């Protein structure tokens, strides 16, 4: 899932400093668009500064034709396939901003800040999946937990859990458990006054 190659998730449809939505054709949707994946995109008028976000929703919109095909009695399978793959409506991917950082000499965004970016990305900018290194360095600190936990209109508990499971893959196998324990400890401190929520999130990230 996480890889070192440059992998485009989509292009910006709408954006704000809090988050953005990017779109891609339905043909492209795959593991790059997993719930909880880390993505990055340069912000407006600054090629070096990238916002880092978490995918929290992937939406496949309907249109008139789809509505009709759904109602139709019998449809030629080729028409269905064609309609599924060559739709004119993009798949929308919603991203929650959790930090930003600057590219290093190799183009990697490492040692980012766990706070919202100064500006949003511009429309149609390419959104990329973060590399394994970027995920590793970004998750050395836990400050972005709070952004996720406090985000409204986002399934924050599930998102955080998914993001952490995703991030753990960036760690060598023998360090994953420890990483999860550290994350859990940080959560335990953050959610100390909401023990029900804490135990729920812990149940979600608990390594098998």
């Amino acid at each position, binding site marked *: 899932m996480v890889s070192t190659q440059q992998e485009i998730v989509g292009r910006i449809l709408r954006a704000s400093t809090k988050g953005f939505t990017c779109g891609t054709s339905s043909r492209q949707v795959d593991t790059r668009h997993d719930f909880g994946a880390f993505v990055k995109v340069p912000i407006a008028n600054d090629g070096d500064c990238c916002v880092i976000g978490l995918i929290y929703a992937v939406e496949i919109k309907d249109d008139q034709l789809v509505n009709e095909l759904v109602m139709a009695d019998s449809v030629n399978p080729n028409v269905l396939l064609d309609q599924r793959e060559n739709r004119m409506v993009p798949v929308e991917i919603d991203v929650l901003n959790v930090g930003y950082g600057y590219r*290093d000499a*190799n183009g*990697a965004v*490492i*040692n980012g800040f766990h706070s919202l970016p100064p500006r949003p990305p511009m429309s149609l900018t390419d959104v990329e999946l973060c*590399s394994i*290194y970027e995920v*590793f*360095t970004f998750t*050395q600190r836990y400050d972005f937990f709070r952004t996720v936990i406090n985000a409204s209109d986002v399934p924050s508990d599930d998102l955080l859990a998914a993001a952490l499971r995703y991030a753990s893959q960036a760690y*060598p196998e*023998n*360090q994953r*458990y*420890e990483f*999860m*324990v550290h994350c*859990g*400890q940080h*959560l*335990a*401190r953050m959610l*100390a*006054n909401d*023990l029900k929520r*804490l*135990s729920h999130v*812990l149940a979600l990230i*608990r*390594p098998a």
Partner: protein
Amino acid sequence: MQYPDDSENLDQWFPRDASAYMQAVLPIPRLGVVVGGSLSKGLVVKLDRGQSVEDLAVGRYVVVHGTNKRFFCMINDISLNNTNPAIQSDPPDISDPFLSAVYTGTAAYGTIHVAPMLSIGDDDKPKPVKTIPSHFMEVMNANVEDVNDVFGHEDESHFNVGTPLELDETQINIDLKRLVERSVGVFGKSGTGKSFLTRVLLAGVIAKNQGVNLIFDMHNDYGWEITSENGSSVKGLKQLFSSKVTILTLDVESSRRRNAKFDSEVKIGLDEIEPEDIAQLRVTMSLSDAMIDAAHTLHKRWGDSWIRRLLKGNVDDIEEVAENTPIMSGTLLALQRRLERFERWDFLVAETPEDSVERIVNLLVEQQQSVVLEFGRYGNSLEAYILVANYLTRRIHERYIDKVERALGDKAMEPPQLLITIEEAHKFLDPQIARATIFGIIAREMRKYNVTLLIVDQRPSGIDEEVMSQIGTRVTALLDNERDINAVLNGISGAAGLREVLSRLDTKQQAIIMGHAVPMPVVVKTRAYDEQFYASLINANGTGINIDKARKTLGSGGGERRIR
């Protein structure tokens, strides 16, 4: 912490040796941080999550690394806390290792309470604490260097008495010069190692020439071979310092039976016993004031032989006294009955060929010998012990005063520092008699006449408060009686914190040392009194057994040399 920073260098990211990597990124081990507290009540330290409360113990040393100073503290309480009390009603499932690792140290954590005792600033000199470290300063386990900075190294006046808790590789060196300068108390329940500990202290004083000792050895614990509780036998002081220790005995028979060497026998003349000596037995022999008055009267009328004459109990004699003095014959008869037991004590004789007091003073002052007076079977009779100890001490003390006064302040002419060891000290220093007895006087006059006490006792609460307050160094093994603990801690700063520590010492071979001879209270695991200990004395700063023998054969070691 250092993170990999080169995204092209895979080795840096995922090193082959993962444990080395983890070590490199983990912070240095520490106990926790200061989160609150006060100078009077001590500091509260929140434990880091890696620290298990189970690995800690009261009495252990910790060091708070402040901005400019190190604060030396002793753990005196350990508690469990949580950030949200609701967790108590719905505790997490700790059998799950993941949940256990997450919750412990975060939502539920340990705190320790530590009492700051000393601080060391830039000048490396330990000073009493007058302030506390600020918030969130790091708290570490004390290391060897920390302990050495406080207690110094072993040298001609510092003597190793044991190791601090959990720090076996280091040692606590007490200042013997300061130890003997004021009275010393060794306390603890029966069987906690008081006699062993006292022997360690005495051996130190003798080895390092910090003074001479007079030991009233109630249970034959100090002179020659001693059988320990586990059946093995350990060496007495005479065996360790053959030329610096003289054993006198009151009971030759017992010494022979025990196969214990002794240098000579001590006898006390009945005619030398004065009414003042009898008065010291007031509590032990339940003598009334009237009986003591009677003793004085008899002494006046009959002279030195008053005891012998009373014991003979001639009816005419008794009547004569009753008629001519305000003393009732009933009182006389009661006194006579009390003193009858003197006849069973073979060390009391009508006349003595030589003056035992003179002999002991000569040994102590001229020959600079430590003297162990073994009581043999008389150790079981408290009356005999008290009578003899008081009798000798009163007279030796007089001579000491005389010698010190004649020296006119010239230290070189003064007699050597004398440390007198007594057991069952509360019988001598009971509040009812402490004011009048010689031991009370010595304790109170402090070091004026170069005589101090080493009192060994299992019931310090029975000792007069004023006398206790004059005890410079208190060494105490486990005590469990509340009143005894109070008595020992009375007047010690930071005592509240030591209470928990004191009542939780091991039942053997552990003690808190506090007061004059140590810069701060410290819990020690007492040095084992064994072959290794004996051997160390030989090497102790060139003052051990071998050198001693050499000196003796060379015929030096005369009276001019001063133990200082």
